[in-house]
């Protein structure tokens, strides 16, 4: 199973949750499979998906799902410590860990070698960390979104990409329609 299949598989378990999605192909895949005004697509700033998701979860009440990647977490490694020490029970962080920088040509990441992101998350103090395979992602995400307990899911899958469209929606439109959705839920 590759990342785009994992992303597609979790769409049925996302009901009205707010979604913050990692830069590059992950956002493009989500956009292609299920464009929603409640999706915040990152068009720039590698690494900040989990931080945006946490900041959002801490400042309003609706459930938040951040769909991040292993490369992005490695870019902003301090984020797992911040998340652990500032838990938000409406926050689910899904790290789709395909062991590669998919958007830039599938260069290997250290998460696909010796580094275990689930162990790092636990060592940082995250209380509820789950490691699963791509096939189990939908079930685990569904449980986490309804669990009312901050959950970090590290979903291991194969590297590989599919052709996707560019996101041409203007960033201010993405932001504006997203904030309208936030307001409607609070």
């Amino acid at each position, binding site marked *: 199973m590759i990342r785009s299949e994992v992303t597609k598989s979790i769409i049925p378990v996302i009901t009205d949750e707010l979604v*913050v999605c990692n830069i590059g192909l992950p956002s493009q895949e989500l956009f292609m499979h299920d464009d929603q005004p409640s999706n*915040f697509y*990152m*068009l*720039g*700033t590698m*690494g*900040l*998906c*989990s*931080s*945006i*998701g*946490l*900041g*959002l*979860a*801490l*400042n*309003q009440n609706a459930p938040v799902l951040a769909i991040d990647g292993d490369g992005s977490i490695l870019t*902003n490694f*301090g*984020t797992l*410590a*911040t998340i652990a020490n*500032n838990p938000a029970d409406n926050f689910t962080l899904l790290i789709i860990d395909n062991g590669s920088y998919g958007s830039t040509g599938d260069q290997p990441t250290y998460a696909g070698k010796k580094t275990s992101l689930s162990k790092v998350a636990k060592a940082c103090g995250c209380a509820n960390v789950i490691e699963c395979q791509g096939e189990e992602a939908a079930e685990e995400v569904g449980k986490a979104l309804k669990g009312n307990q901050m959950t970090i899911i590290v979903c291991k899958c194969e590297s590989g990409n599919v052709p996707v469209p560019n996101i041409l929606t203007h*960033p*201010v439109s*993405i*932001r504006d329609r*997203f*904030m309208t959705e*936030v*307001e409607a839920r*609070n």
Partner: protein
Amino acid sequence: MDINERIVDDFIRNEIGFVTTVPCKQLSGVIDAVEKHDQIHHVPCNHEAEGMGLCAGAFLGGTRPCIIMQNTALGVTVNSLAALIQYYQMPLPMLISYRGEVGEKVACQVEMAMHTKPILQQMNIPSYHLHKADDIEELSAILNHTFMASKPTAILADASFWSAT
């Protein structure tokens, strides 16, 4: 009134409810004041770019954010400012200790001080320099202006300001 409490009062007056910080010796008092205030959610972060992500999330969540940081970090936040805060037109007041100005005791700090204003100017980020104690009178209006304009702004507070207050 203590300058740090005055700064936090101005945050409250401008409805800032979320503050992330990276420490600097000059900022220790204001960071303490932020931490103690019960109307401000304070989340210390590990890196200023991470802090900008947290602030972006807070803003999306309907809370006015602020980041408190040192000017030496400006170089590592250029992309976050350009491709996140500016690209999505988000407001973000940055209260920045302006290290490396007259009164500085650490020579290396002077290096980034020389780049601070040019970087901000290059990025079209409105910048304000707090130098004398009375300059604090401008802070509330600067914060108000930041949220009106929905842009990042830099409030540079130098050694003279901190020692005079």
